[in-house]
């Protein structure tokens, strides 16, 4: 095989089948013409080194083939790059916060030593960070190849810009004067909230699904639950978590899609509120299930209001049922909050008015 043939074969391998023969034929002719011109210049036949020089001047096969492609020659283009960078920063920030909190919890409950906790958190941040960067890059790759770019690239408002200060890690932001000055003016607009929500929910969902590790091993954490009063909380927590795994993933993915869709295409107040009502109903159903039908429910469901109050009053850790009482109060609070939020969204469905400040 001659050098030219090897070169053309390398170019051909990068080209699509339908245009390959045509392009290679033209390139072959162009290279031959160049070589003949070089021969005429030198006044002698070309050596292998001369041929290689001509082929180098033509360009690397990857670059030459890429020039014939129809799509963009980049993964993340200049227009989308700032958004990609921002999304990665916010995702990494959320990941760091989640891992820091989980490491703290693990260290506080005595599950891990301090050094081990820090090490695990760092490991989780690195692997999770690579996943976030990879997924953001894949999303950008897909967006770059759409005929119509998303709305948030073309239609944006000055109100949306406050969120982008999140990516500023300047130390001066920590100063008291800066915080005071900014607190009165910082507001999140709907698009900014949607982007932040999508990024945050994506990290939470990936962590729940175990795609990225945030340092919390549910099964290990549940082993810290005391076996008290003859109740194996370890087993109950694991069972409950396993039963909630797929509903949690579905909820998280649905939230990511909903928040993401709001950033791409603004949603009307009523439509958005109706969807939020559905989410609130889903959360309430989940919490109620925890209370009345989960493996934990025999221990966290009170006999009545009097029993609820009595148990809530006696939550010191010394009592055998302390964990059950604490979970009872937490689930009750979660139900109340979900119902309250759902009612708020329901009012917005009827009135058509958005929240103050949006």
């Amino acid at each position, binding site marked *: 095989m001659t050098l030219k043939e090897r070169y053309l074969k390398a170019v051909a391998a990068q080209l699509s089948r339908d*245009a390959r023969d045509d*392009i290679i*034929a*033209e*390139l072959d*002719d*162009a290279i*031959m*013409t*160049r070589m003949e011109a070089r021969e005429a210049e030198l006044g002698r036949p070309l050596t292998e080194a001369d041929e290689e020089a001509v082929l180098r001047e*033509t*360009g690397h096969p990857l*670059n*030459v083939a890429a*020039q*014939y492609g129809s799509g963009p020659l980049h993964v993340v283009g200049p227009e989308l790059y700032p958004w990609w960078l921002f999304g990665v920063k916010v995702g990494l920030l959320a990941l760091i916060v989640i891992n820091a909190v989980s490491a703290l919890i693990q260290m506080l409950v005595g599950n891990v030593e301090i050094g081990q906790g820090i090490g695990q958190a760092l490991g989780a941040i690195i692997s999770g960070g690579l996943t976030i960067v990879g997924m953001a890059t894949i999303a950008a790759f897909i967006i770059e190849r759409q005929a119509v770019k998303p709305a948030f690239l073309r239609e944006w408002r000055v109100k949306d810009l406050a969120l982008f200060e999140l990516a500023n890690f300047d130390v001066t932001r920590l100063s008291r004067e800066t915080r005071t000055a900014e607190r009165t003016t910082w507001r999140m607009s709907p698009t900014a909230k949607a982007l932040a929500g999508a990024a945050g929910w994506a990290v939470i969902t990936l962590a729940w699904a175990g795609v990225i590790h945030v340092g919390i091993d549910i099964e290990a954490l549940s082993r810290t639950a005391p076996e008290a009063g003859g109740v194996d909380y370890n087993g109950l927590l694991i069972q409950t978590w396993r039963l909630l795994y797929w509903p949690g993933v579905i909820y998280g993915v649905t939230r990511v899609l909903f928040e993401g869709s709001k950033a791409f295409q603004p949603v009307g107040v009523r439509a958005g509120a109706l969807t939020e009502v559905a989410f609130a109903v889903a959360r309430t159903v989940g919490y109620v299930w925890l209370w009345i039908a989960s493996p934990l429910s025999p221990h966290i469901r009170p006999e009545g209001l009097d029993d609820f109050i009595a148990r809530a009053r006696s939550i010191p850790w010394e009592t055998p049922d302390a964990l059950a009482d604490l979970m009872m109060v937490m689930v009750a609070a979660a139900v109340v909050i979900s119902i309250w939020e759902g009612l708020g969204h329901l009012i917005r469905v009827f009135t058509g008015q958005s929240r103050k400040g949006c």
Partner: protein
Amino acid sequence: MSVDPELFESMRLELRRGSLVLAVLARLREERYGYTLRQALAVDGLEMEESTLYPLLRRLESQGLLASEWREEDKRKKRFYRLSPMGAAMLMALAAEWRGINASLDKIL
């Protein structure tokens, strides 16, 4: 004050990039194949790499501005390009635009 050579080169290329399509369309009022087109442009002072020229020719053809056909010349098959009717109209429009830009810049400079 001296000009930074790297910065000048990058700005010079950016300045030239916008004129290449017009130059190629203008030169293809007369039928040519890739190599002779490249030579003609080089004589005009517009050097173009083959890796830029040939994909550009394919793109202009896919946009309907050029027509091409394979013919045998000197015992080798070569692809000859020429302006299509749409390409001729586009050349006139772009040339008028170019003259307008030129006139504006002349006033500024």
